[in-house]
């Protein structure tokens, strides 16, 4: 069954707003303009729409924490993390306020919107701020658990949500972990998160049909990374690929930082992602295809 992450946000928020009287939503728009979320209908006294004003939106959410509020800030990933980066750093992370930043339309979701709307630097922008945690859910159920987890956990965080429906990978019994060991392999492993994880899974399944065992690990939490598991993976495999719809500073960079200090034999680390370039304005699937970010592209790169 297919589902999208915005429905996960809506479903989770209905429960969270009901359970936590201090939860509020500061909105800079909702991705489905013609299909208003349920939380907007049922909790309108705790949902405030700031329109197109990301900087003020984040700063106001920070201001609500003075009264013990638990604000969720919802806005476009590229605008929140770009335009309001200073507010996220100075007003949320420096004082360590309990503000949850939820960015929609991550990666190449904006497709034909073009380079200005593509969000391929957001992980990097958020990852380099002290106190900030970064979550990149890959399907509906994982997103639900991420929202539950950040509600219980105190402190700033960024959740990266992509557009469009993907096949459910996990189920309702899923429990959030730093790393999901989806497949153990022999010589090659793939590390991924978010939108491209389902493409990686398709690629690994294809290899399995050919009798090849490829490791596959999902990272719903990109920061903080579980260093022990990364070291274990880098020590176990000959080749490790990081697959992500992100440019410099994402999971690949984070794993590289650990690899750089690693002693002894370790894997060769490669990236299947976005180089330092701006993508053209085209449909998401076409961009994935052109830049080798779909199942076929991944298989080609890892030598399947």
């Amino acid at each position, binding site marked *: 069954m297919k589902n999208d992450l915005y429905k996960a946000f809506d479903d989770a928020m209905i429960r969270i707003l009901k359970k936590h009287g201090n939860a*509020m939503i*500061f909105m800079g728009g909702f991705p489905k303009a013609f299909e208003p979320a349920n939380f907007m209908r049922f909790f309108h*006294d*705790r949902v*405030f729409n*700031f329109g197109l*004003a990301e*900087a*003020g*939106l984040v*700063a*106001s*959410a*920070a*201001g*609500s*924490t*003075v*009264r013990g*509020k638990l*604000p969720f800030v919802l806005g476009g990933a590229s605008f929140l993390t770009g335009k309001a980066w*200073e*507010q996220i750093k*100075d*007003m949320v992370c*420096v*004082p360590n*306020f309990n503000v949850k930043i939820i960015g929609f339309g991550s990666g190449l979701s904006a497709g034909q919107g073009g380079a200005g709307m593509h969000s391929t630097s957001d992980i990097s922008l958020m990852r380099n701020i002290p106190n900030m945690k970064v979550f990149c859910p890959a399907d509906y159920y994982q997103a639900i658990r991420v929202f539950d987890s950040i509600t219980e956990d105190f402190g700033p965080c960024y959740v990266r949500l992509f557009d469009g429906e993907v096949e459910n990978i996990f189920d309702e019994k899923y429990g959030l972990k730093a790393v999901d060991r989806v497949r153990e392999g022999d010589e090659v492993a793939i590390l991924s998160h978010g939108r491209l994880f389902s493409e990686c899974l398709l690629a690994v399944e294809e290899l399995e049909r050919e009798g090849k065992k490829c490791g596959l690990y999902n990272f719903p939490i990109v920061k903080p990374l579980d260093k022990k598991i990364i070291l274990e993976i880098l020590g176990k495999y000959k080749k490790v690929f990081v697959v992500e719809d992100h440019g410099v500073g994402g999971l690949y960079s984070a794993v590289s930082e650990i690899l750089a200090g690693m002693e002894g034999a370790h894997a060769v680390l490669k990236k299947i992602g976005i180089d330092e370039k701006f993508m053209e304005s085209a449909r998401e699937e076409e961009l994935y295809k052109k830049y080798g970010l779909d199942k076929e592209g991944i298989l080609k790169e890892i030598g399947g």
Partner: protein
Amino acid sequence: MTIEELKKKAAKIRLECLDMTSKAGYGYTGSMMSVADILVALYYGDLGRQKIMNFDPRKPQWDGQDYLVLSKGHSVAVLYAILADLEFFDRRELSFFGQVGSVLTTRPNPKVPGVFFSGVSHGNGLSFAVGTALALKADRKTNKVFAVLGDGELQEGQVWEAAMAAGNFRLNNLIAFIDNNKVQADGLVSAAMDVYPIQDKFEAFGWNVIQVTDGHNFEQILDAAERAFTSNRRPVCIWCHTVCGKGIEFAEGKISYQSVSLSENELLAAGEKLKENL
């Protein structure tokens, strides 16, 4: 407090923050002096039985308190001096202002009892105050939120995002003071980027504006606050004309004193005059 007592308190606070910033070798003398009377009026002023701002130094998290956001955070030494005087924390801490390991950072630090706002960059404070005011509305509380902004700060686009939001949400629990001292770090505000007309701008965003022609006159400031408290369904902007460096004869109105602390000799000279008002 009577007007005379407020004047004495303002002289004491001026002395204290000049001393702190001079010792630290870091401070914004002109800006601190222009906002000092506004902050003293907020913390010590009353309208007969009603205090301007409700707070309890023994309970910095008290649910019934009002909130102050010093958006022109570079003047924070004035706020710290007031909070120490009110015994939010030990006065001896003031001598560590801007030093390694001190909680008294040179921009507002919410780790300091009585400070709620983390003010690093200009233009953020009014948005922050909007968020606090909205949270109070969501709780159906009548506590007030005061924001104090500089005039140069009005050049920041985010101030107008916040002004629009406050007007849109009809935040009549929000009162913003503008410390219009006409000077910013690199010269005259009007030379850098003109911010006038202040009144028309705020009114266009749905605010009531009250003009205080002398932002160092306590009667005028208290009168403006009283009128602000009766505002109906609108946020209020109290636009105060002030003088950069007010209270230090040789620094008044001088751009060169806007963003520096006083030398030891200057501190002595300023101190002699201020002590006459104690």
